[in-house]
């Protein structure tokens, strides 16, 4: 049956009575005419009558048909029947199909013989092949970021098929919100450019993974709004190509690879020092529901390290470790690989993980002092062996430079692991800029204000927008005699080593004067230590990849309490036993996190800077006498001297890993080398690769060095083609890495996508659930254990969304049509489980969207029929008239 949107308009059908009336009346109306030659007239009539009567009736019928059809068109008919009753599709208007294919890597998950992507591709191909001529196609990848493969509607189905066949997943999750937004833009554009595609049909092929479809996903935001917006513009459909059940899937993933220092007491041997010993930790997660065992193969710089075997409980985690020791400085690449997974893993992409560990022969600290000797104690505490030479290795491990404020501007700050501002009075705009650049590119800053500090200047320069560097705004100095220390439960990693070590003197630190501070962003900032009155002593806050520690009192005993007579110092902390261990943990924290910028997730930007200070310091005379770092011969000075100076306007070459390297060894041949324009800022050559798309190891180096080293290594190599690397680094590259002229980055996948857990139909918005269940009649397996293993159906519109029983019918029809022996699909339980869904989830909007599309579907054919009838009518009338006149 065919319901009508406006049945009252059907009354227009009564207009069909008009031609009948005219017909009858025109008979009656015949003018009387006395006639002599009746015999001939009668003869003519006899001859003519039969045909005339037929034609007359035909004409009448046509005229009536015009009016009846017009009334039907006005009444806006709706199809309630099955869409594959050929007419609406075959005779309908051309449709713009937007095929949105989930390209998150969970689509690679194998279930049965095929992956989700295979199924999606098949279903999409079916749509393309079954679509009537004249339909246009767009192809969009549901990915992060959304990627439009075919934007403007393509009418060449062969081209679409080719693109579909070439589809690959991206090694990342998917951003549903932005993808839907892109689809909407795309539809709007297509509407303008190809207006004849009157119908819009968006099909999303997805495995319905929770990571993508969870409306509560923090990263991508709530996509439901975008969905509603899109639903107003097109008919939406979701095809579930995921596994019917996730219970028997096996996916073991390395969700993290990290290096941990071996902590020896309060002083750490941190992992980035050459000669230091550390530990590689691979965190394994079992996403399946069966215990899974595997061997974790660790490699460092291509050399196998250890391969512990480990068993991970269902939906649990385990950590595999390997001891590692770095003898040479440079960017070391560690890789963990899962081998011999039992039962066999079905998603290989997350079985690898890389870690770049930038190992230095020593840490670099810059202490900027606002007055003489303000940084002396701090420098001693950070590098205890420097002056006393008690431990040779420590002496080498940390180099502390002391300089005045001018040092902030006369060198590249990038190479410092930590910069400390000790009682600096004021900061100029340029100095603030330099510090800001440093922190926001991953630098670590410790601020020790003192009596010289211009609080207003600090609050304004460091505490304001756009780049805040101060975790807390400072107030005027407050002196108090009986200040007690609140360790805040030793929760902060900075203080944690003092736990149980009360005699280390932390709580008895003699402090009499401090700057009361108010934390600006309570969510980000972390108060490590406070005074008993609640005022913070030590506040930490990350700014981008960088970190800032604010200490509200001085690190040197030279600050005097204002107005005190005799003059009293702010504190005696620098000479107290707690000072050195605290500064050492601070240093450790500062150093430990520095590899974070080298290890990012797929999709994130790669950014780095190459120092070029030697080049410039020769021209500038800003180096102070007290700067013990300026003469630091780090090899690149030598390079610069030999003519390899980084000139401004240079570019940086970044080697990208090949997509296949995800499966291959750590040092597969790079797929391509990108040349990136670098920007010279101050003493640095800064570069930025805005987005990464392939997991693996990225190597960046200034382009001129590359050509130089290449010509040495292999004269025939060109700039853009890199020679294949062996499993071990060449000595030259080693040197380059050591010299800091080559930077490595590990780009890993975000393993949240590895979770094959599917979204419950209950979690979907009602409108979507409706259309989803309608187009995936066996999707009720989502919420229950009933595993209908039927293949996703051939093309089927969403018209059936309006009828509660459609799901059941089509399930039956489908299993019959596929003919595959899916014992489960005919299961009564499946059918029973569907009914409540279909009954419960009626959403007006969904049905309205569907109905709108149907109106479009019917209206034009009706108009066409009216037009054709009119043409036939006039032709017939003309012909009859002509016959009479002949």
């Amino acid at each position: 049956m065919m319901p009508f949107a406006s049945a009252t308009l059907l009354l227009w059908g009564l207009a069909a009575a008009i031609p009948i009336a005219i017909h009858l009346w025109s008979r009656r109306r015949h003018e009387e005419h006395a006639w002599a030659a009746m015999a001939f007239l009668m003869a003519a009539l006899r001859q003519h009558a039969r045909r005339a009567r037929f034609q007359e009736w035909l004409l009448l019928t046509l005229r009536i048909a015009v009016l009846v059809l017009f009334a039907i068109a006005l009444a806006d008919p709706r199809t309630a029947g099955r869409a594959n009753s050929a007419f609406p599709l075959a005779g309908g208007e051309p449709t713009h199909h937007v095929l949105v294919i989930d390209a998150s890597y969970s689509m690679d998950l194998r279930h049965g013989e095929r992956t989700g992507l295979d199924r999606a591709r098949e279903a999409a191909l079916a749509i393309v092949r079954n679509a009537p001529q004249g339909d246009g196609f767009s192809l969009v990848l549901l990915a992060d970021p959304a990627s439009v493969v075919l934007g403007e509607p393509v009418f060449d189905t062969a081209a679409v098929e080719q693109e579909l066949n070439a589809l690959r997943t991206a090694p990342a999750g998917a951003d549903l919100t932005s993808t839907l937004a892109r689809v909407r833009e795309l539809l709007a554009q297509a509407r303008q450019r190809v207006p004849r595609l009157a119908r819009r049909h968006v099909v999303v092929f997805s495995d319905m993974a929770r990571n993508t479809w969870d409306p509560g996903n923090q990263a991508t935001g709530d996509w439901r709004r975008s969905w509603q917006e899109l639903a107003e513009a097109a008919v939406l459909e979701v095809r579930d190509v995921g596994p019917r059940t996730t219970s028997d899937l096996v996916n073991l993933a390395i969700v993290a690879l990290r290096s941990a220092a071996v902590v020896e007491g309060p002083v750490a041997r941190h992992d980035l020092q050459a000669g230091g010993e550390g530990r590689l930790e691979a965190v394994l997660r079992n996403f399946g529901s069966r215990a899974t065992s595997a061997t974790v193969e660790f490699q460092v710089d291509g050399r196998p390290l250890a391969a512990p075997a480990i068993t991970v409980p269902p939906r649990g985690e385990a950590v595999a470790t390997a001891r590692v020791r770095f003898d040479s400085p440079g960017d070391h690449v560690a890789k963990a690989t899962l081998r011999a997974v039992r039962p066999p893993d079905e998603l290989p992409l997350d079985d690898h993980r890389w870690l770049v560990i930038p190992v230095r022969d020593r840490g670099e600290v810059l202490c900027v002092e606002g007055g003489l000797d303000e940084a002396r104690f701090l420098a001693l505490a950070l590098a205890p062996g420097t002056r006393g030479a008690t431990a040779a290795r420590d002496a080498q491990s940390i180099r502390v430079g002391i300089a005045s404020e001018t040092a902030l501007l006369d060198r590249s700050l990038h190479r410092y692991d930590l910069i400390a501002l000790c009682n600096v009075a004021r900061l100029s705009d340029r100095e603030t800029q330099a510090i800001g650049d440093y922190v926001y590119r991953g630098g670590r800053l410790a601020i020790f204000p003192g009596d010289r500090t211009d609080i207003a200047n600090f609050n304004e320069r460091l505490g304001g927008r756009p780049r805040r560097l101060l975790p807390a705004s400072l107030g005027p100095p407050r002196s108090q005699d009986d200040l007690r220390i609140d360790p805040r439960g030793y929760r902060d990693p900075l203080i944690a080593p003092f736990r149980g070590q009360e005699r280390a003197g932390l709580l008895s630190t003699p402090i009499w004067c401090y700057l009361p501070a108010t934390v600006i962003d309570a969510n980000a900032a972390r108060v490590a230590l406070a005074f008993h009155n609640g005022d913070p002593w030590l506040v930490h806050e990350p700014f981008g990849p960088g970190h800032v520690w604010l200490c509200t009192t001085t690190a040197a005993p030279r600050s005097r309490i204002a107005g005190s007579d005799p003059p009293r110092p702010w504190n005696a902390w620098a000479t107290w036993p707690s000072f050195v261990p605290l500064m050492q943990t601070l240093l450790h924290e500062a150093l430990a996190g520095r590899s974070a910028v080298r290890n990012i997730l797929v999709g994130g930007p790669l950014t780095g800077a190459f120092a070029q200070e030697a080049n410039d310091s020769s021209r500038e005379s800003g180096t102070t006498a007290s700067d013990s770092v300026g003469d630091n011969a780090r090899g690149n000075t030598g390079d610069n001297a030999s003519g390899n100076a980084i000139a401004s306007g240079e570019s940086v070459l970044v080697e990208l890993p090949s997509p296949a390297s995800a499966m291959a060894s750590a040092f597969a041949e790079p797929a391509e080398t990108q040349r990136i324009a670098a920007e010279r800022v101050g003493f640095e050559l800064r570069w930025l690769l805005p987005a990464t798309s392939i997991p693996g190891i990225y190597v960046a180096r200034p382009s001129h060095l590359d050509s130089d080293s290449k010509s040495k290594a292999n004269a025939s190599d060109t700039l853009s083609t890199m020679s294949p690397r062996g499993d071990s680094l060449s000595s030259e590259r080693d040197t380059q890495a050591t010299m800091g002229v080559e930077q490595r980055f590990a780009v890993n996948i975000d393993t949240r996508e590895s979770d094959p857990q599917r979204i419950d139909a209950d979690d979907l918005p009602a409108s979507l659930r409706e259309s989803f269940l309608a187009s995936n009649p066996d999707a009720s397996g989502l919420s229950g254990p009933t595993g209908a293993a039927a293949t996703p159906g051939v093309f089927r519109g969403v018209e059936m969304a309006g009828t509660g029983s459609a799901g059941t019918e089509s399930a039956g029809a489908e299993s019959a049509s596929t003919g595959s022996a899916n014992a489960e699909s005919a299961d009564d339980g499946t059918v029973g489980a569907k009914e409540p869904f279909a009954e419960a989830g009626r959403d007006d909007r969904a049905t309205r969207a569907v109905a709108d599309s149907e109106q479009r579907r019917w209206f034009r054919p009706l108009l066409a029929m009216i037009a054709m009838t009119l043409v036939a009518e006039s032709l017939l009338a003309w012909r009859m008239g002509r016959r009479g006149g002949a």
Partner: protein
Amino acid sequence: MTASPTFFDPRTLARLNGLALRARHIVEGYVAGLHRSPYRGFSIEFAEHREYAPGDDLRYVDWKVFGRTDKFYLKQYEDETNLLCYVLLDTSRSMSYRGPGSALSKLEYAQCLAAALAWLVLRQQDSVGLATFDEAPRTVIRPSGSPAHWPVVLNALEQVAPGPRSDLGAAFAALAARLVRRGVVVVLSDLFDDPARLSAGLRQFRFRHHDVILLHVLDSAELLFPFDDGKRFTGLEGEPAASVDARAIRGAYLAEMEKFLAGVKSTARAQGIDYLLARTDRPFDETLAAYLAARLARVKP
């Protein structure tokens, strides 16, 4: 000097009342136009003498010849050689049809023609007779050449009343029996009858050695069927009415009419009858000229 065409325009004549006026109008216009007409002299024939035979009327003895030759010869006068013209006018109801494009009905037109012919014949000292008929002869006026005959003919023409229906065969047969003297028979009719009966009727005249001229009076509407919309046609002679879409039926009608005309013409040709189509929307002089041409052709073979 040429005649004004208005003299012969039926529309002009239609404004004139009285058949005498109309006929005079036509003929005077025509005679004026025939100033140098070659047809002028088919009037008086020669006389002939023949020997007297006992029983002949002595009045006709030519005494002059007897005086010279002493023999009796009779003088035969032109009386025998005078043209006898019978005008047969169809007064059936079908003749009263007047189409939308015509000023006169077929009967009116035929009346005018008859009157004009009578006038013409009388002017030439010939005799003219008149008969009207429908399904049977109605009025029959014996032929006479006297000028006093003209009002009689005219009166008879004016007294014509349409009869119910035509039966040409019967009417012609009856008339042929009464027109004993050989002459020219001018039939003014629409000939709407069965072609076979028509043919039989005409043959009756030919049997009696009449020269027959068919003046087929038809309305232009009957010839062209110029109707566009639906019409309900009622028969003038009692045929059942028919509602037709004129435009649709036109072709078939015209074909029928064509067939009818062809049949009539072939009948006429077969019997040596002159056939003339007199369309009521055409000027009378055209018709008259055609008639006279036909007459001349017959007189001077």
